[in-house]
């Protein structure tokens, strides 16, 4: 029995504050990472591949020990006020880290105080660094839609329009994912595509009610899609518009699938989409493959099939690999070492939130 929380081989994944920042990065807001410096460094230097290419107002609150011990929220707000005097921002986002989590910061009070002093809308995301990126994405989408989506826009639905929720670099195979999704949907008849968090603006969130439907491409977008359905009646579907591209990168022929026991590890929507494509291909085979989807991240019951599972501990992963008698594992390449003496075929399916790498080694990081 391994010690709870002990990782001997698998490195920690992108945390919730990185997920929050990923949604907000292009929205023209001031992003304040409520930390001492390390978390902002991790977001910009490692988890945010756009940082090298596109400037965004991502700041560390620069907290010091006495700020945290004495709960000097007013001091942080003064810093934000001073910066906002010099920078034009549409709103301010304060993103939590382990420091405010430890001292139990009251985010509601912080938001109210900040809005009063700054005169701009302020959102807060109570990320804590102990959860993975998808939690931060989920909270941030929900916060943005609930604060900014306008009721006035409801009733003016744009025909053949789609909002795409869940496109961030952390879940993507490259920085072009948003554009490729837009191109694909446009080619198939959608006239207006908004990828929230990738190439979208603050105003697009305000107009969310005008979308004819929403497409959820990662499980972290589900809660926001359900919120928009409940508030505006906007239907949603879960799919991965890039799955054909992804399939082309998987070096397996249809014949290779015959009778195989396959494990796919990724975020749930992508793992499901890949399973669906492979099963469709294998429809004509005499001995169909058995495919299980597993994820370290959110596992939504509605999207799950029997046997699908969420991995929580490294020891669970070892057990899953060791006892599963898999023929093929499709997962981020950084799990290969943890798969130990797995004797089947291991196929790389990059997941930036896991390895910090895109497919094809695009150079995206400042820290090297």
């Amino acid at each position, binding site marked *: 029995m391994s010690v709870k929380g002990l990782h001997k081989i698998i490195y920690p*994944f992108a*945390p919730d504050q990185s997920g929050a920042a990923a949604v907000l990065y292009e929205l023209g807001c001031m992003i304040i990472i409520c930390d001492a410096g390390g978390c*902002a*460094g*991790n977001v910009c230097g*490692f988890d945010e591949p756009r940082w090298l290419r596109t400037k965004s107002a991502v700041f*560390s609150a620069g907290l010091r*020990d006495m700020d945290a011990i004495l709960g000097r929220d007013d001091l942080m707000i003064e810093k934000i006020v001073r910066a906002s005097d*010099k920078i034009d921002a549409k709103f301010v986002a304060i993103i939590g880290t382990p420091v405010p989590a430890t001292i139990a910061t009251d985010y509601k009070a912080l938001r109210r105080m900040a809005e009063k002093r700054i005169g701009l809308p302020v959102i807060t995301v109570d990320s*804590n660094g102990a959860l993975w990126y998808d939690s931060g994405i989920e909270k941030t989408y929900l916060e943005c839609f609930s604060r900014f989506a306008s009721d006035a826009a409801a009733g003016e639905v744009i025909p053949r329009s789609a909002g795409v929720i869940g496109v961030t670099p952390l879940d993507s195979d490259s920085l072009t994912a948003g554009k490729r999704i837009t191109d694909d949907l446009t080619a198939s008849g959608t006239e207006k595509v908004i990828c929230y968090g990738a190439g979208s603006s603050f105003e697009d969130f305000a107009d969310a009610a005008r979308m004819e439907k929403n497409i959820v491409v990662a499980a972290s977008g589900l809660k926001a899609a359900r919120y928009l359905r409940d508030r505006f009646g906007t239907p949603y579907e879960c799919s991965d518009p890039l799955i054909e591209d992804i399939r082309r990168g998987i070096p397996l022929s249809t014949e290779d699938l015959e009778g195989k026991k396959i494990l796919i590890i990724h975020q749930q929507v992508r793992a499901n989409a890949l399973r669906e494509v492979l099963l469709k291909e294998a429809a004509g085979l005499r001995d169909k493959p058995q495919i299980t989807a597993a994820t370290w991240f959110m596992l939504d019951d509605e999207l799950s099939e029997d046997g699908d599972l969420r991995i929580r501990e490294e020891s669970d992963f070892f057990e899953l690999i060791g006892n599963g008698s898999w023929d093929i594992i499709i997962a981020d390449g950084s799990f290969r070492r943890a798969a130990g003496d797995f004797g089947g075929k291991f196929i790389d399916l990059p997941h930036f939130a896991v390895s910090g790498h895109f497919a094809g080694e695009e150079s995206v990081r400042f820290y090297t």
Partner: protein
Amino acid sequence: MIREPYSISIRELNEAGADNIPQELIPATQLIYSSPATLAFNSPGATGFGVKRAGLAVPDSVMLLVAPGCCGRNTKLLSEIQGYEDRFFFLLMDESDIVNGDHLARVPDAVREVVDYLDVKPSVVMICATCVDALLGTDWDRVCRKAEEISGVPVRPCYMYALTREGRKPPMVLVRKAVYSLLEPARRDPRTVNILGYFSPLTDDCELYDLLRQAGVRKINEISRCGDYESYLGMSKANFNIVLNHEARTAADDLAKRLNIPYLELTRLYQTDKIANQYNAFAGSIGASFDDSVYRERAERTVSEFRDRFGSISITVGEMLNANAFELSLALVKYGFRVPEIYSNVSREDYVYIRHLAEISPETRLFTNLSPTMLCYDCSRSDADLTIGKDAEYYHPDCPNVPWNEEKQPFGYSGVTKLFEKMTEALA
């Protein structure tokens, strides 16, 4: 979107004085811009030799990072560096651990599990602690003692407490103390010297090695050149320590107190006349004499050849480099170049250079990497021919650049020579 980046001339900065450094230059008073330099220095585990990598300076050591997952995320980068692949382990805190500290009860068992997992017992398990435990007030010495009892190997804490970066003993000071904490009293060897300060060695051609040999030193220890734990323990025999980085002063004080090894400090400089003065003073203090003429002549020849070839060019200087930005700028101006802009944090200690720089280049402007207003820095307003420092390159992406942040550390005349060689390569 933005207006102007904050900047101040060196003349104004000097006139304000060390006691009145403008608020815009003081980290605690403002949000901190995510520039490359702040990402590096404000984030103690992030890049280069931050706390995590530095903590593994002891040969054959491993590290257990005890933290929420976010603190270990960018450690993935270090795992991609040769020699670090199998040396990091993580005990991840969950949401309740952050508040109630339950993770501490798991540390000793986690250390034992790590030790049992390894084929070869590590020399020491370094526990890397983070902001959560800084706030919880964790007594790491106690936790490490317990872990040591259970695992049978030495266990030491190193503190990646970003919250204390501007405190009396910031993380990079304490980690230097931690990595020498395993040294035990030993019989002194009068011909052995330790060089403290960096986690990678001086460049092989650094004249300091030769000068020490001229003084009769036979063994020069640097932690990064210790191939195994036995060699590391041999550092206990040093007759004296040479501190090349002020962040190692606390470690040197500790060694002076525990092992009775005295120390002296040398500063990395790029002004050849000052290097000469420093070596003279150093030789005097140890009762020796050095002949450094060959090295000095070579350095000055390299500078003069560069100036003859490229003229009095304009060079901007960052702080993410193996130099003090102000001292290097002062040296460059003294050598006949223009330094229109410096991108750097500023401290009281820098005024020793700022005062001189104000006399010979008062209009040089200081931009601070910290300021949120740097978001609107516009490189087209600057006339740089060359930039030095990785952060300077960020602001001038199309300008020739010398990063000057290699791991092997430049020092003395050989540092000057190598820098100008690199500058020549960048412009050739």
